[in-house]
């Protein structure tokens, strides 16, 4: 589809259009120039010939007419005709007409070349006239003149000479042939010039296009070369300046983002050491609380509990910052999903509170720890916010590409605004419940863990009420060897 579009774009592209335009211009100029040159040269050649023929003819007729007496018979008329023809070259045929007599210097010649129109012109205007005629594709010049007496009154004798114009037409045809031979190179040259000039325009345009596409693909470092001082060079320069500005601002944004993420990671990291010490000694507070005065005991227990909470929060923050910085990696191991889910439930003492449907023998490559985190989060939420019975269903899709773990409860379900934000960080569904048991990051971390596997978690409300969370993971099967 794209390829076809691109090919079509090539076809109606700038290069094609330029070449066509150049070739058309070249053709038009060549044809026009040829036509003009042909016409001019043809006219010049023919006129020279005509003048020469007319002059020669006139001289011959005058000489011959001097020996011609009227009234004439066929013999004297023939003599007159051949006399005129003698001086006019080999190919000339002279026809003389006197009253009803018509003779020709060459008996076999075709007299029809002397048209009635010419005869009438000679007769009516009583002066030399000429006409070009074509016979069998050959051009001829026919000149006719009345023979007049001194008083310019017509004698009744008309002489016509037919001479071939073949040499002249061939000479002018030579011009045409030369042009016809020359037009192919001219058109080719025009095409080459068009391609060259298209290149000078297209190369920068293409380069700009390529650079733009690279930018779109996220490589903001690409620039175009600025050549020359024309508008395209200006465009290239503008592009580069824009790219510089864009790169700078994106780099700045990324830097800020990275700084913010690093800060969260650093803070979390820094919190770990005091927390490690506090977490360690919290046991002592718990162990000795019973021996303390009631107020002190409560304070001790509170410190111990809050230390544990703070420690979970920092853990979650660290986890989140690892996702944000791309430092989270999958540690895939072949796992029996039913076993893993059962382990998650029993580790937290939830086995009796959740109805499970766990088909055995579903083995997949997953990150056990992360799957545990996801399942624990979904089940924990269902137990805390939903209503029993909580059901957990492990299933595989018929195509065998996906695994699903569905956790459903029979509580009131999720209101629409909660559905939209349930995976947001620190989102508290119940505004009254400002202190959640968790860090507020649990669901967001669960989703990130699913995404890291290439999967998702979907939140919805079941057809019979209650929230339904579905973990969907790509089913990577372990490569197995049978022992």
């Amino acid at each position: 589809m794209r390829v076809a579009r691109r090919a079509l774009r090539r076809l109606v592209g700038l290069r094609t259009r330029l070449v066509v335009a150049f070739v058309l211009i070249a053709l038009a100029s060549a044809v026009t120039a040829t036509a003009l040159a042909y016409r001019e040269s043809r006219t010049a050649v023919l006129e020279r010939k005509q003048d020469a023929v007319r002059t020669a003819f006139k001289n011959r007729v005058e000489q011959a007419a001097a020996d011609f007496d009227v009234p004439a018979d066929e013999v004297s008329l023939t003599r007159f005709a051949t006399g005129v023809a003698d001086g006019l070259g080999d190919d000339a045929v002279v026809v003389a007409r006197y009253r009803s007599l018509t003779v020709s210097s060459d008996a076999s010649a075709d007299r029809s070349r002397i048209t009635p129109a010419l005869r009438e012109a000679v007769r009516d205007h009583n002066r030399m006239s000429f006409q070009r005629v074509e016979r069998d594709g050959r051009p001829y010049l026919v000149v006719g003149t009345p023979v007049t007496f001194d008083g310019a009154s017509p004698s009744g004798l008309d002489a016509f000479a037919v001479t071939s114009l073949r040499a002249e037409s061939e000479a002018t045809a030579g011009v045409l042939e030369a042009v016809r031979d020359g037009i192919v190179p001219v058109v080719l040259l025009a095409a080459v010039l068009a391609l060259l000039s298209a290149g000078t325009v297209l190369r920068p345009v293409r380069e700009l296009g390529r650079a733009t596409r690279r930018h779109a693909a996220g490589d903001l470092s690409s620039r175009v070369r600025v050549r020359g001082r024309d508008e395209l060079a200006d465009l290239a320069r503008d592009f580069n300046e824009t790219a510089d500005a864009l790169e700078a601002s994106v780099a700045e944004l990324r830097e800020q983002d990275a700084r913010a993420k690093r800060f969260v990671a650093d803070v979390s990291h820094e919190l770990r050491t005091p927390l490690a010490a506090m977490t360690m000694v919290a046991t002592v507070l718990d162990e000795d609380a019973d021996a303390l005065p009631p107020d002190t005991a409560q304070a001790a227990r509170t410190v111990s509990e809050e230390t544990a909470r703070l420690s979970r929060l920092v853990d979650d923050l660290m986890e989140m910052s690892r996702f944000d910085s791309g430092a989270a990696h999958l540690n895939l191991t072949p796992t029996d999903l039913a076993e893993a889910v059962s382990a998650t439930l029993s580790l937290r003492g939830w086995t009796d509170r959740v109805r499970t449907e766990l088909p055995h023998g579903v083995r997949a490559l997953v990150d056990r720890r992360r799957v545990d985190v996801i399942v624990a989060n979904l089940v924990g939420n269902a137990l805390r916010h939903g209503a029993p019975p909580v059901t957990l269903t492990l299933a595989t899709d018929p195509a065998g590409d996906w695994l699903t773990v569905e956790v459903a409860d029979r509580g009131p379900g999720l209101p629409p605004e909660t559905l939209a934000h349930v995976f947001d960080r620190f989102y508290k569904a119940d505004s009254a419940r400002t202190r959640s048991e968790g860090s507020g990051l649990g669901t967001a971390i669960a989703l990130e863990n699913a995404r890291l596997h290439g999967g998702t978690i979907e939140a919805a409300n079941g057809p019979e009420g209650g929230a339904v969370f579905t973990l969907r993971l790509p089913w990577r099967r372990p490569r197995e060897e049978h022992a």
Partner: protein
Amino acid sequence: MAHVLLIEDDVSVRDGMELVLRRHGYDVATAATGEDALALLADPAGAAVELAVLDLMLPGVDGFEVCRRLRAGGSTLPVIMLTARGDDTDIVRGLEAGADDYVVKPVTAPVLEARIRAALRRAEPSQSARGEDHAGLVIDRAGLTVAKRGVPIALPPTELRLLLELSASPAHVFSREQLLQSVWEHGFLGDSRLVDAAVGRLRAKIEDIPARPRYIQTVRGFGYRFGPV
């Protein structure tokens, strides 16, 4: 009671661990740097130490290096790493350096103690006393020694237990989860990389060609089995 060495640069964390472990009856020695720890362990007084809890992030010689030097010196002292980050690379590097187990900071006292107890138990003599010869690899279950073609091989307790566990049922396939529970006593959701790392270290010591193991074979998709040789 057991003698534990805590190697931790942060004074509060060190004091906290020391306080809790002393209260629970352990003999505790402490070191603030890797250099101090190595010096202490090299000293005759350090011979009493039965287990080290080692923070990876130490100034100067870090935890990885301390672990590597101990193992290079033939020490079979059980080492539990404290990682300040749950970062995978740290864990893998630490296990490759020869640590037996790891805990992620902040760790609660009960978890740390459970790990210490499990690591110490691996060093105790086992009940089934018999010597076996597996194609040149002689395992003495009573004396907890391993020798190959008559040459003794020093194995830290974790690797030794792993070998005992696997060789007790030759040709039986153990999943990583089973091994985590029986050798490390991790219960559910232990990190199977502990098993892989220990198998790797063990192969480096007992196999002729670690890349083409005879004794400890991988059964892809399931786990490991010993032999059949």
